[in-house]
């Protein structure tokens, strides 16, 4: 009888110790997980990568156009844009369509490199620097490539980050360090 009690007691205290130890570990790793998931700089880093991916994709979309499939191409342009840039695109769409139909060009682009230069998470605005190589393939002529230095401004929308401004980096004597707006 006493022996059974002793065994029971040992088992119980062992189980209690194991449970306490495991709970301790669980609390420790749990809080570390929480901290990792709610790390501000981690969130910022993920947003930065999100902004860059959105910026590069948008630049790619806006430098890709096939005269045989204008509607889809230009829809993709508009989907990548918001704000002033979107207004501009919509305004110029009809005229632009006409031009591309006449020229019958196929334009493709490669993003060579890109960087986020500024990011304001609270305001939902960001600036990017993107280097692209654009290939224009006209009918009956050899395709030509040109490299383009782009400055983009992105704004957060309900549907992700979109370009609200895009332009060539001005080539001049005046050094500036902010995207043109």
């Amino acid at each position: 009888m006493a022996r059974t009690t002793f065994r029971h007691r040992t088992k119980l205290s062992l189980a209690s110790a194991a449970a306490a130890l495991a709970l301790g570990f669980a609390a420790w790793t749990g809080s570390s997980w929480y901290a990792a998931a709610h790390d501000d700089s981690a969130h910022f880093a993920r947003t930065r990568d999100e902004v860059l991916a959105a910026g590069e994709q948008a630049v790619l979309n806006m430098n890709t156009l096939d005269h045989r499939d204008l509607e889809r191409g230009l829809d993709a342009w508009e989907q990548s844009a918001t704000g002033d840039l979107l207004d501009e695109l919509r305004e110029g769409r009809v005229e632009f369509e006409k031009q591309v139909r006449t020229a019958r060009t196929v334009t493709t682009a490669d993003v060579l490199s890109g960087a986020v230069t500024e990011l304001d998470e609270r305001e939902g605005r960001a600036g990017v620097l993107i280097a692209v190589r654009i290939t224009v393939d006209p009918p009956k002529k050899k395709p030509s490539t040109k490299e383009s230095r782009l400055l983009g401004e992105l704004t957060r929308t309900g549907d992700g980050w979109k370009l609200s401004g895009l332009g060539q980096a001005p080539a001049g004597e005046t050094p500036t360090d902010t995207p043109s707006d």
Partner: protein
Amino acid sequence: MSTTRHMVNRQRRLAAVKARETPTPAPRAPRPRPKSGEKPARTARGAVPRPLLLALLTLLAVLAAAFAVFAHSRAEAARDLPALRNTALTDTARTSEVKGTVGQAVDAVFSYDHAAPGRTEKAADKYLTGKAVGQHRDMLAQVRSQGDRQKLVLSTTVTHSGVEVIDEDRARVLVFADQSNTSTAKGGSATHAAAMFAVDVVHRGGAWRIANIDTFSR
């Protein structure tokens, strides 16, 4: 309705206060009457029989351990994301340090004055390392060979730059620069060019140095 609820709550509160104030009653008699031969301590533990308690504790230990392992792996995964390894922009001090150094370095090593070619050499010694030394030599070879005759002055100004990646002691920066190449000889002219390239920099001996120049050539 709300009045009634108020009243009910109030009564509850009052009852609770009263309950607290009344002295605790004498300990109740042990509920399950101890059977002869059994120690009271065993049954006094309450309604949970021992084997069940043991099982519950074991289950708790197993569950907690499982959670600990899971949480640990999740925390590690969250910390090990490539996004987090890259501290461009998140580490503002380091980002502006890298950006600043690259700006100075590019301005200096891609500027050349036929009257003072040593200045470019010195800048190259200071800011370049590894593969970039040879790349820079090749890039400036033409300017150097014609420099004296045409009295060339090449100047480079970084207009925009963005830090793509900082991974501890390595970083990559995208650079947009304006270049002007002026021949100050008689009948000489000036040409302007817009340049874009990326540089890989490494942190060595307390300073960032350009280790590779990527001109995106195919």
